[in-house]
């Protein structure tokens, strides 16, 4: 009886704790008060990054369309549209109800093309800028008319999506909002971000970067598994933080690289999601605490430390993805070789190989859209991967002609390409010190080495 009573009390206390609002508990991105001096409007929360969420939605919808062959529709999501476009993804699935169905319910007048990486992309044929590469991919996808082109081995939805995440979200955040816009003379904190805004220059710059990261505002209160399952649309309870029965894409959903971070963290070896998201929350608190005054050098230095934590961990998340898909491609080739040897039907396995290769390529290109030039690493990565996957007839895309059509030539053999995948995995470990190492093709070798154990004592048998 006494036991039951204790349990009841404990349940009560625990339940109350859980029910406490997350706002202001240090674990949520917002709300944060208005600090802008002289603001007289009725806004109470200075957090704003709906434009970024709109771009996440445009990206997800574009990915969904990329196998349709419908160029005008794809372009409407890539370059923006006057019409209030439908949200194709993420869309409600079963019990997982999404609050918004139209893009303008989030933000209007947004596009991906205007925010895409303007630098040269060396890992894609044709010597094009980031935005040109995306447009080229979209055009080719439309030309081909379906997701996978066995002739080149390209899976367009994967290529477009994985590259866009880097060329738009990662690049904008780490190379713009967390870079020049953090400087003392750019978007100062004692002025509105732009005329008429209710948030300061620094508040909004930081918010925009957080928006591109893609984590839900309350996500720090959840486990990696829960955060992962939100994007997989499997955990309504975790997503619907305010309990209104719908998932608000603006604050309750995990997009893009934040989702990938959670996917690695749930393995338990890394903590990318919390590290980056917490740094964003901590940075926003520093800016809020400046209370509408220009940031001091000390405050800016603190932000720079957090900015570096964000940048480095975000980069690692992309490097983990390169690692993971290099491993997938290795395994896919193994499977293909077995099927070929047995004279079996390669259609399905070849399409899977193309899909994983598209992810690998997209993430590898994304990795090159950061703030820093990764130099030799990029050269190695691009050379080992080539412009296209090695095809069944041992050819590979090697360039584009003057009309932008792919040119193919003889490639190195399968086994050499597999070796390249191993070396790409090693490169990610050596350069970015990735830890989650999904699909580690050398894991067995290191496990066995550890199991057999080195001989570190002098013994005469």
């Amino acid at each position, binding site marked *: 009886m006494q036991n039951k009573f204790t349990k009841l009390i404990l349940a009560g206390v625990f339940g109350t704790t859980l029910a406490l609002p997350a706002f202001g508990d240090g674990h949520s991105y917002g709300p944060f008060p208005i600090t802008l001096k002289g603001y007289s409007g009725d806004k109470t929360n200075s957090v704003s990054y709906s434009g970024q969420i709109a771009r996440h939605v445009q990206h997800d919808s574009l990915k969904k369309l990329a196998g349709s062959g419908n160029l005008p529709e794809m372009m409407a999501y890539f370059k923006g549209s006057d019409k209030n476009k439908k949200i194709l993804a993420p869309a409600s699935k079963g019990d997982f109800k999404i609050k918004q169905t139209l893009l303008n319910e989030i933000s209007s007048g947004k596009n991906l093309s205007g925010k895409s990486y303007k630098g040269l992309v060396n890992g894609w044929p044709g010597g094009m800028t980031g935005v040109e590469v995306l447009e080229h991919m979209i055009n080719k996808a439309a030309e081909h008319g379906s997701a996978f082109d066995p002739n080149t081995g390209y899976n367009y939805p994967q290529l477009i999506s994985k590259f866009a995440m880097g060329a738009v979200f990662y690049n904008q955040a780490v190379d713009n909002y967390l870079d020049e816009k953090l400087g003392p003379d750019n978007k100062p904190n004692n002025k509105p971000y732009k005329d008429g805004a209710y948030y300061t220059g620094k508040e909004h710059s930081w918010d925009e970067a957080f928006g591109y990261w893609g984590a839900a505002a309350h996500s720090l209160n959840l486990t990696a598994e829960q955060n992962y399952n939100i994007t997989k649309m499997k955990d309504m309870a975790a997503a619907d933080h305010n309990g209104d029965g719908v998932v608000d894409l603006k604050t309750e959903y995990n997009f893009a690289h934040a989702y990938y971070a959670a996917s690695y963290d749930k393995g338990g070896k890394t903590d990318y999601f919390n590290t980056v998201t917490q740094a964003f929350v901590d940075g926003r608190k520093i800016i809020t605490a400046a209370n509408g005054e220009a940031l001091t050098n000390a405050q800016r230095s603190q932000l720079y430390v957090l900015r570096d934590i964000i940048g480095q961990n975000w980069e690692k998340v992309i490097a983990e993805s390169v690692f993971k898909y290099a491993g997938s491609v290795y395994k896919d080739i*193994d499977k293909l*070789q077995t099927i070929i040897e047995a004279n079996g039907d390669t259609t399905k396995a070849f399409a899977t190989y193309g899909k994983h290769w598209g992810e690998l390529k997209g993430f590898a290109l994304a990795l090159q859209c950061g703030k820093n030039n990764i130099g030799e690493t990029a050269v190695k990565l691009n050379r080992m991967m080539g412009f296209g996957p090695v095809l069944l007839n041992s050819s590979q895309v090697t360039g584009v002609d003057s009309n932008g059509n792919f040119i193919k030539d003889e490639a190195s053999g399968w*086994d050499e390409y597999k070796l390249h995948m191993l070396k790409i995995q090693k490169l990610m470990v050596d350069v970015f010190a990735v830890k989650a190492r999904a699909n580690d*093709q*050398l894991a067995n070798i290191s496990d066995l*080495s550890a199991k*057999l154990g080195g001989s570190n004592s*002098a013994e*005469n048998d």
Partner: protein
Amino acid sequence: MDLLNFLFLDSLYEFFNPKKRIFIGYLLIAVLIAAFWLVYFRKLNLREAINKIFDKKILFSKSAKSDYLLFFINQIIMSVISPVLITQLAIATALFYYFHSVSWLDAGVWNNTPLVIIISAFTLFHFLLEDFSKYFVHRLMHKWPILWAIHKVHHSATFLTPMTVFRTHPLEGVVFSLRSAFTQAISISSFVFLFGPQVDIATILGANIFIFAFNIAGSNLRHSHIDISYWKWLEYLIISPAQHQVHHSVLKQHHDKNFGVALAVWDWFFGSLHHSEKIENLKLGIHINQKEDTHSLRSLYFEPLKEIILIVIKPLTKLKQILKLIKFTLIGVNR
């Protein structure tokens, strides 16, 4: 002091690690086997047998005491040296990469082999490769003067105890480390390349099943005064403790015999096999009249180095003499 404490404890850990020869379990089994042997075959009563096994004159001999010291000191030296030696992982990875670039080798060709066969094959292959490479390196240790200079430390033991395995010069430890790294790398990289990621090793208490069997069969007795011998036919296949004791004998006819560790087949094939003999009080060591000084730490650590320097310098002094002669001849001609 903390570091020393730590190293001391680390050394003691060897007694609790079933991957190690001196694991307490293996030592206990060795005592039981020895007792059974002495009572059943040598017809001693149990008390006599126990007294013989734990013979104080042997366990506290100068030779044995230096074994114990070397065990601790080498542990410290090796903890400094080992981290800079190439690892089996580095070699295995390099080999694994290399195999991919060999055009006539296909990665994962035997991927579909049943798991039990893969594990059995890997475990057996690795055991055989290890045992053979130990035989081969041991043979070299005896045949090459520079290597013999350092291996002599082990042979300078005039009494054998299970701790004599640690009576080893650190330079020899380096040679053994590299041998182990290379053989592990060869087994791992070739098997993972051919059989894919499901390769594994069959172990008992973490030790290779064959090594475990070797150890519970009384491997510790090879370095002891209990001269257990096997049937003649079996000594062609497996080295008996008495056969290894013969390897440590000072008698000329026993020199360079029985290099093997677990298997005798290598000695048999390469002509170095010697069956056990019934010799009361077999004299062990390097020379018949071995000096007591050979058990001092100074001698154990520095004598080999001195000897190596002499071996290297000797041809150099000869060269110097030749050069002198040439110079003399040339100057003579000029005159």
